[in-house]
């Protein structure tokens, strides 16, 4: 049931301002996005059209705390098929970033581990300019499991066989223990600092 007194009429403007969210109000609720989404085979209740409608109505809390926000594959099927060019894959990303900021200010608790993964990934680029797989895995597992030791244990459980396989094929070795780095790392730091800071 929609509690009209809890609706936030500003929510749609908040999304429209977020890069990727610009086309929200073009949606005419045809459901093409949901019908083509491959996730619905696995999660029958997954429904991007509904998330858009709830956003347009201003159901801010419901949308930002919806766990389905964090399972989108960014496969772009919805975006390719939408007759209104809503660019749903980017739009969901914009809503995820609003949710992440909400969590940073303590107003929301996100149950998904995806924000921690994305952050750990971004830290690698910020530091090295390239993806450092080991650094990413170590940081992500540490945050996910709550401590460095627990993280290392969970990681070796999940990745023991996989790591051996890759090692045998020469795809992971001593070289992968160390990060590849771009020479100009200062500019990486500046990009994240400048682009990230403005939106707070």
């Amino acid at each position, binding site marked *: 049931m929609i509690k009209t007194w809890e609706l936030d009429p500003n929510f749609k403007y908040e999304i429209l301002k977020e*890069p*990727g969210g610009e086309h929200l109000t073009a949606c005419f609720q045809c459901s093409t996005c949901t019908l083509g989404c*491959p*996730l619905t*085979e*696995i*999660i029958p209740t997954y429904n991007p059209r509904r998330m858009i409608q709830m956003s347009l109505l201003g159901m801010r809390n419901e949308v930002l705390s919806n766990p389905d926000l*964090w*399972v989108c*594959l*960014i*496969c*772009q*099927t919805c*975006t*390719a*098929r939408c007759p209104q060019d809503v*660019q749903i*894959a*980017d739009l969901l*990303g914009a809503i*995820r*970033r609003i949710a992440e900021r909400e969590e940073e200010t303590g107003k929301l608790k996100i149950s*998904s*581990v*995806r924000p921690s*993964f*994305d952050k750990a*990934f*971004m830290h*690698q*680029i910020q530091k090295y*300019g*390239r*993806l450092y*797989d080991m650094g990413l895995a170590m940081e*992500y597992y540490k945050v996910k499991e709550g401590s460095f030791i627990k993280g290392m244990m969970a990681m070796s459980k999940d990745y023991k*066989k*996989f790591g051996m*396989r*890759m090692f045998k*094929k*020469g*795809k*992971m070795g001593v*070289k*992968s223990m160390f990060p*590849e780095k*771009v*020479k*100009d790392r200062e*500019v*990486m730091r*500046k*990009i*994240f600092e*400048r*682009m*990230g800071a403005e*939106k707070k």
Partner: protein
Amino acid sequence: MSNLKYAYFPGCPSESTAIDQDMSVKAVFERLGVELEEMEDWNCCGASEVEDPEIVYALNARNLAIAEKKGLNIMTPCSICYYNLQRSNKVLRENEELRKKIHSIDSSLTYNGGVEVKHVVDALVNDIGIEEISSKVQKKVNVKVAPYYGCYMGRPPLTAFDDPDAPILMDRLIEVIGGEVVPFDYRKAKCCGGPLMMTVPDIAFKMARDILEGAKNAGADCIVLACPLCGMMLDAKQEDIEEAFGIKIGLPVLYITQLLGLALGISPDKLGLNKNVVDTKAIVGRVV
């Protein structure tokens, strides 16, 4: 073809998990007489994890600027790098305000819009051309192939260079080297689950299982693809998927440049065919 030359953007997995793709791309382009000059000091494109498009544009403004200084167009073998480089290219060309904003961060991010970005499959079919490739084919690939395109060759419309639902460019490459394309319908362009591999592995595995079983049921001897993340899911993780669902797949997964390289007479070792996780010997043996 001697006048074609690209700035090569290898992408982060090129020295580790997708080293086989990197080796085969270089070998195939060398055989075709097309020069690749690796971009000096390129940086990560942002992958799927940098969700803020403006950060993606800034990261890739630097890459585009590096190629622009050389006066070369970019070619990349990774579908995600392609998507990020190309959308940045299109958006930066159109949006002067954004260009200025990014330029104000650092002068190395100054890009003036003079570069084209090509995915390896696009470069092979549309720049080099099927006819040219056909004239260099030495061997016939007697293999049934499931061509797997994944998400970013045909989607989203801004950056697509093939059909969103029924892509065909790799089919044409497979046919010209004598391979048989099995009917692989909508699975050709259905997501492999890769983006959720680390955060919601059970969904990622279900997505990948559908592609693998679909290929097997279609009678394919192997899957052919052109993206390191798809390669990770379908090849490197195949054993984990078999274990998780108690099934047996055992399907070799090759990069399109590996299969093409065999037809062009390049040795399997040079194409990194001993590095694919599922053994590829059965496929190599059928290229004569």
